């Protein structure tokens, strides 16, 4: 009796340690890119595990809108994964300040990134970087080449041409002119306001003006952006108020819509959804007297959970993210995410190549609300832009009301904008 008890106890003890070691060796990646699950599981993770057979990696994404809240909860509760996908700027800075993310200054691979690339994931003074910059996204418009050919349309370059094209598609009646829904709200801001807006507010000049207090959301270029967004209203796909992001992706992917206001990450989605779709792209249209500007937004980085039990393995993984091999794989398997590392890679997808080519001719900036301006919890500039843009698109707010609303909330807490 005593012998069996002892044996049982010892076996249980061995199993327990074995279990703990198995857990110790597996890296878990937290991300909001649930669309990328197949790519990670089938291509990226096997490529890494071939180089490092002793490290197992799991990709464990959450839904995009829930990611930040979920991540906060997991970090507070100590159950977050080892590698954490970092949103750019303030969001991750707050995580670093709260000591959830570890400093990566000693990571060898970080020398492959320029200071500009690291800005989104470094402290204000630039001294500490806490996430490996992984990819940027560019905004523009995707269109269905088949529909354009069928209706005899050419690619619009100015706003007048754009609205004219939309009018022709709507008159034809077979296809939806502009496929974007307002139910999830973020597309209206991200692929609407932040897509055509930068041309109007003069790229970095406008964005930095907001931070300095010299530009306001309800004046000048920013107000013009709301007004330009309102001009989309008559051409939106039917039932757009109840279409969520996956619904509009499906709609365009099935070939029922002509133009899709896009972030470059959508290229990967449509390639996977409908490989036969004839995808084309054109850059954000210009306005009279304005130079073309694209939103070239550092979108995703990967950081290290400060409380991770697998720090050495995680650092090996993060180092791998700075290599040529990863950049080549990532850029081609997820066309539309453009690696930020100073490494060589070639893009195979023609539409992704088009997006990248706009960097040569156009001014660049990134989304206005991400640096410093979203540091306040409530009211939050990004959330306000979502609300305002969705209402402008659905016609329940005038552009001036939208600008006033966003500006009022920003001025209520942000010192340089107080009283403006």
């Amino acid at each position, binding site marked *: 009796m005593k012998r069996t008890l002892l044996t049982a106890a010892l076996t249980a003890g061995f199993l327990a340690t074995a279990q703990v070691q198995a857990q110790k060796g597996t890296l878990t990646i937290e991300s909001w890119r649930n669309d990328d699950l197949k790519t990670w599981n089938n291509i990226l993770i096997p490529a890494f595990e071939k180089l490092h057979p002793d490290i197992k990696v799991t990709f464990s994404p959450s839904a995009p*809108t829930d990611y930040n809240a979920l991540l906060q909860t997991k970090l507070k509760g100590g159950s977050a994964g080892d590698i954490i996908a970092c949103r750019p700027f*303030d*969001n991750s800075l707050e995580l670093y300040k709260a000591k959830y993310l570890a400093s990566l200054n000693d990571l060898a691979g970080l020398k492959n990134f320029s200071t500009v690339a690291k800005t989104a994931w470094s402290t204000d003074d630039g001294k500490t970087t806490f996430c490996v910059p992984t990819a940027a996204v560019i905004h523009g418009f995707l269109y269905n080449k088949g529909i354009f050919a069928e209706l005899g349309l050419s690619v619009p370059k100015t706003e007048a041409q754009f609205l004219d094209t939309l009018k022709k598609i709507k008159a034809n009646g077979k296809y939806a002119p502009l496929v974007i829904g*307002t139910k999830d709200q973020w597309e209206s801001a991200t692929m609407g306001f932040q897509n055509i807006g930068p041309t109007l507010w003069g790229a970095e000049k406008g964005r930095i003006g907001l931070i300095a207090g010299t530009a306001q959301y309800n004046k000048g270029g920013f107000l013009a952006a709301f007004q330009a967004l309102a001009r989309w209203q008559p051409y939106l796909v039917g*039932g757009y108020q*109840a*279409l969520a992001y996956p619904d509009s992706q499906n709609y365009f992917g099935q070939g029922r819509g002509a133009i899709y206001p896009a972030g470059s990450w959508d290229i990967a989605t449509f390639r996977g959804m409908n490989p036969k779709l004839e995808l084309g792209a054109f850059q954000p249209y210009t306005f009279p007297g304005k130079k073309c500007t694209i939103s070239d937004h550092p979108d995703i980085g990967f950081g290290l959970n400060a409380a991770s039990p697998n720090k050495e393995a995680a650092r090996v993984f993060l180092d791998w993210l700075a290599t040529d091999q990863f950049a080549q794989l990532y850029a081609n398997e997820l066309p539309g995410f453009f690696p930020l590392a100073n490494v060589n890679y070639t893009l195979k997808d023609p539409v992704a190549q088009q997006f990248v080519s706009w960097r040569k001719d156009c001014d660049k900036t990134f989304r206005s609300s991400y640096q410093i301006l979203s540091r306040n*919890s409530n009211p939050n500039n990004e959330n306000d832009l979502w609300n305002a843009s969705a209402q402008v698109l659905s016609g329940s707010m005038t552009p001036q009301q939208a600008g006033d609303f966003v500006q009022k909330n920003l001025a209520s807490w942000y010192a340089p904008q107080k009283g403006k």
Partner: protein
Amino acid sequence: MRKRFPTHIVVFLLPAAAIYTLFMIYPLFTSLWLSLNNAVNNGPEHFVGLANYLRLFQAPEFSGPLWNALWNNLKFFLIHMAVQNPVGLLLAVLLSRQLAGTAFYRTVIFTPTVLSVVIVGFAWRLILNPQWGLHTTLLGLPSTSLITVALISVWQNVGIPMMLFTAALIRIPNEYFEAARMDGASPWRVFWSIQLPLIFPTLGIVSVLTFVGNFNAFDIIFATQGALGGPNFSTDILGTFFYRTFMGYQLQLGDPYMGSTIAGVMLLIILAGVIAYLVGWQRRIQDLQY
């Protein structure tokens, strides 16, 4: 002879009381304690008394959404009271007559209650989707979204009042119905004069359960509209407002102190409702003897 202290009662109650205290009472008090504290910019936590509550009701960035959420929640509750409970009662009365297929109907009507709310939310999102289902924008327009989500919730939960009323109706002895039939009463008269008065206590319980359930609601809105309570906060209720404030949303960071303040306010509202029920209704209803 002095009665011995009934220690066996304490022993039998202890496990349940311990678990209830650990998982319900303790979190409740720590949450209330959290609402009385604040920490600025990841600094140390310090006691601030009722400052958070004052801020919740006075600062425009909090009081606006709070009153909006409260008003939406009230509408949500009234729709349930107007639709769910009367329909549940009607179904219970109809199914209390021995018709063919009663058991089948009861099962089918009760099944949505058993379904996960995520499935219900997702299924209705597809049905009410202009792309996949009926060509409606009911969930996307501020004027119709709250009513629509409330009706989805009614659809899911009508089984519970139905079952509670059925249980109460079964208790009514048959002699009353026989006597009424011999006196020539119509079914409607039977309902109004016999069935309804004898299930008054159940009516009260169902109402207070609806109240508590609706003011605690969160999951159906989250599943159909997301945590922002869109469009334009028209479906934002106390539960979703709390979730966004406590956990954060997108770039908005979570604030556990204001979050627990909102939770404290929710507790006060529900407590007020339940106390009103207990004092105003429960004590007045005589225990019915047959």
